[in-house]
């Protein structure tokens, strides 16, 4: 086999960027997630961030973060197991557990770390992971690192999952791994059915609710509320950096599952603890959601409906999203970036997904309108979306 040099291995293929004259990745934002936000000195309507409830730049969160800096400083300069754990850290763990209706919660610096670290801590190589075909990279990478047997099941296909569960050796420990909201499509896992399947076959469920927490359920508590699951016996993970407007990730669940991770999850034990200002932000945002979720959610859905309707009426091809995500089908990578470029030139920031994040020739342009946006911004965005599909 011909040897490929290290420099060649590290080469990035920019051909699609050169062809379209547009690189949508790492845009340099010069403002907060305001409406408009600022890039290259120009105003943009933010349909890219995951700021579903529009709380990332809420003055109450900013004030809470400042107060935490005044009390604790910027960083505790230690891992949670050493000097990084504070009374605030503990308070927020308890608050999140109560919010979710779960016994215990651990807070990681990111949800990628939480997902990655979960599997490496709990799985052995003779265990079996049954994982949704479209599960997020953080889950997949964590599972692969354990060396366990992987049995993917077709996306959101409960019958295919059961076929795979029937084949698992009863002496093996099996895990069923999925997400609540699949964010490039806007689809939701049939998690009530999946959970019941887990109970039937004695499998341990793992659900990543990153795009569900603060979005799904009558009071924004996420997938477990949405699926009416009480006394959940499994692992629950979620990002604090989407609807919750902060950063970090959590793993929650029954005390006997979480207690082990507290001491044996390397990604938690050996990472500098999440910043006090962020913990204060999470504390405040949970309080705001408890009081204001209905109004914020109503606005978020209204904006989503305005955007989806405009896209459908003007002939855009959309995924069948049932969440506050509108996802345009972009075709191949060049075409997907071309659409994102046209929207960018009209002052709309979007998130384009191209291969290998999605299938080849099956690109997506994701649009999420946060509840902080002004209605006239949404009206302007819908007008642009209607005009652009005439090209």
């Amino acid at each position: 086999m011909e040897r490929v040099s290290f420099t060649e291995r590290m080469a990035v293929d920019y051909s699609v960027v050169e062809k379209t004259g547009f690189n949508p990745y790492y845009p340099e934002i010069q403002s907060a997630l305001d409406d408009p936000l600022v890039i290259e000195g120009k105003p943009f309507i933010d349909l890219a961030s995951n700021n579903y409830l529009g709380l990332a730049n809420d003055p109450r969160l900013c004030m809470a973060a400042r107060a935490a800096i005044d009390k604790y400083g910027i960083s505790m300069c230690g891992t949670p197991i050493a000097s990084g754990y504070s009374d605030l850290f503990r308070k927020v763990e308890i608050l999140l557990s109560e919010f979710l209706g779960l016994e215990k919660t651990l807070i990681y610096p990111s949800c990628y770390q939480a997902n990655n670290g979960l599997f490496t801590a709990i799985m052995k190589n003779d265990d079996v992971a049954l994982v949704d075909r479209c599960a997020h990279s953080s889950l997949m990478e964590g599972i692969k690192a354990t060396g366990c047997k992987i049995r993917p099941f077709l996306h959101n296909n409960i019958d295919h999952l059961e076929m795979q569960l029937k084949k698992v050796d009863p002496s093996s420990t099996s895990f069923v791994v999925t997400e609540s909201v699949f964010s490039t499509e806007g689809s939701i896992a049939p998690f009530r059915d999946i959970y019941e399947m887990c109970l039937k076959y004695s499998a341990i469920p793992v659900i990543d609710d990153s795009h569900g927490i603060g979005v799904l359920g009558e009071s924004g508590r996420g997938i477990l509320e949405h699926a009416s699951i009480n006394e959940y016996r499994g692992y629950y993970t979620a990002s604090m950096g989407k609807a919750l407007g902060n950063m970090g990730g959590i793993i929650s669940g029954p005390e006997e599952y979480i207690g082990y991770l507290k001491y044996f999850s390397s990604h938690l034990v050996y990472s500098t603890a999440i910043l006090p200002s962020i913990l204060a932000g999470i504390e405040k945002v949970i309080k705001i959601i408890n009081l204001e979720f209905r109004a914020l959610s109503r606005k978020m859905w209204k904006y989503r409906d305005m955007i989806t309707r405009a896209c459908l009426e003007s002939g855009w091809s959309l995924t069948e999203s049932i969440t506050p995500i509108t996802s345009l089908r972009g075709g191949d990578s060049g075409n997907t970036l071309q659409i994102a470029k046209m929207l960018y030139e009209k002052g709309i920031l979007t998130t384009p997904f191209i291969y290998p994040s999605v299938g080849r020739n099956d690109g997506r342009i994701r649009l999420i309108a946060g509840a902080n946006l002004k209605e006239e911004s949404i009206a302007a965005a819908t007008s642009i979306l209607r005009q652009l599909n005439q090209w």
Partner: protein
Amino acid sequence: MENLEKVINLIRENTDCKGEILPSDNLVNDLYLDSLDKLLIINAAEDVFSIILEGEDLRGLNTVADIAERLNKLQTV
């Protein structure tokens, strides 16, 4: 030949490949299958052919025809 048709059907049923699939198609370069797609196909093949595939059996499978040939061999063992 019969196995080849079965493999092509397995690929259709378990991946996003809905167009024409040729025996010479490379799984990665022509069909754009990733490691999870391959696992889905292998798991389905175990059911259809009533065999259990070990890691050793899966090495060097680059094309659609390679999978069919490997299954032929395993069935005659």
